[in-house]
């Protein structure tokens, strides 16, 4: 077994530090938002996980294309890793969103385009795993997974764009189309925390992603050894 690369070890530590710092910044450093109060602190994690989740889904679609072109199993492992981590992160986004929605909109959930498209996106990737579970031949499993990830990848940008395409109560901040759209005013400190959260979750994502790829490779190795023994 190959030892853990040093860079990965550094990443492991870096992501732990990032998580701690981001938590500190969000819970303590960031100013309390005037309108919504303490619960607004959830925002930094909400946006952080959503960012890496969506990015991972789009990435998995690209990896699907790469697999279909190269037919190299290693891309399948990477694709599964991307989907798996993104599904978890995106689930956290939804849960945090729901927690935030409770005080902000006085309900856990509402059938707003952003929320609905987010739920659909999550279901696409649950279906992705069910498809894979139903196929025994690993090559075919990889191919079907790649095709489905490619189709599913469309739903990630839609989820992102949903609030811009349809009327929505979910606020837009990044590139808000026009000024009269509801917009949360971020103070300078908030902005700092916001960007740090994005950075922190990117680091954490990369670290988990890398570790998950290594796990996939080790699993493959175990399979191979098992076959040799048999």
């Amino acid at each position, binding site marked *: 077994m190959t030892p853990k690369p040093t860079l990965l070890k550094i990443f492991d530590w870096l992501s732990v530090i990032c998580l701690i710092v981001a938590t500190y910044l969000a819970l303590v450093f960031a100013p309390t938002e005037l309108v919504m109060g303490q619960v607004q602190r959830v925002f930094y994690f909400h946006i952080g996980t959503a960012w890496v989740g969506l990015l991972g889904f789009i990435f998995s679609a690209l990896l699907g294309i790469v697999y279909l072109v190269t037919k190299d*199993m290693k891309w399948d492992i990477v694709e599964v890793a991307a989907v798996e981590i993104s599904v978890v992160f995106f689930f956290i986004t939804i849960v945090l969103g729901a927690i935030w929605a409770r005080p902000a909109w006085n309900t856990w959930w509402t059938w707003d385009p952003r929320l609905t498209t987010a739920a659909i996106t999550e279901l696409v990737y649950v279906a992705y795993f069910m498809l894979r579970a139903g196929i025994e*031949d*690993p*090559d075919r499993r990889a191919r079907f997974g790649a095709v489905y990830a490619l189709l599913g990848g469309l739903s990630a940008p839609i989820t992102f764009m949903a609030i811009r395409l349809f009327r929505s109560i979910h606020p837009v901040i990044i590139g808000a189309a026009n000024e009269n759209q509801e917009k949360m005013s971020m103070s300078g400190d908030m902005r700092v925390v916001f960007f740090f959260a994005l950075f922190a979750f990117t680091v954490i994502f990369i670290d988990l992603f890398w570790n998950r790829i290594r796990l996939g490779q080790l699993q493959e190795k175990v*399979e*191979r050894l098992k076959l040799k023994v048999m």
Partner: protein
Amino acid sequence: MIEVKKLVKRFGMKAVLRGLDFNVQPGEFVALLGPNGAGKTTFLRILASLSRPSLGDVNVAGYRLPNQAAQVRARLGVVSHLPLLYADLTAEENLDFYARMYGIPDAPSRMTEVLQMVGLEARRRDLVRTFSRGMQQRLAIGRAVLHDPEVMLFDEPYTGLDQDASSMLDEVLKSVAAQGRTVVMTSHDLARSEDLATRFDVLSRGVIVASASRESLGNANLLTFYKQALAA
């Protein structure tokens, strides 16, 4: 007619074919023998372009697989243990469909010819649903020879057939061979293989472990040859 070099086929980690070499001259009739799970069906599916090789060179009828699959397919007839027929169409409609898919000119006369050959002329307008196992197998063979293929692949064509249907199949196979077509057939029935084939290859654990022509086998028993090949 068939040239296979260092063919490897993996399902995931598991290598089912591991560097298989296989050559068939035009007009040869090769019986491919081997235990359950040896990879016979897998190998025939690769020759039929239904499955992609993981590694290695495969040439069939002068064309390379998988790149020139369409050319190979036009020259190939396949009989698997499933009938590949539509139960809700008549015998004629089934053949007509495949005739269109192969772009056969003058389809009606060719269809009549084939139906006569497999002895189903009288039932051409009956639904395949109403056919017995033996009759379906006949039609499956008719379907496979419709476009007059140069190479034919048979995967356990005798499975589940009774004596009559088996004799019919014997005759069809002999006539196919007599027309100079190249044939590869898998079977667990050594007696039948001995009757028909001009060459016997034993596939075990993903490679051809022994090969003998009818002449080189001489008076030796095919069963002993097969057992020795596996024991080695």
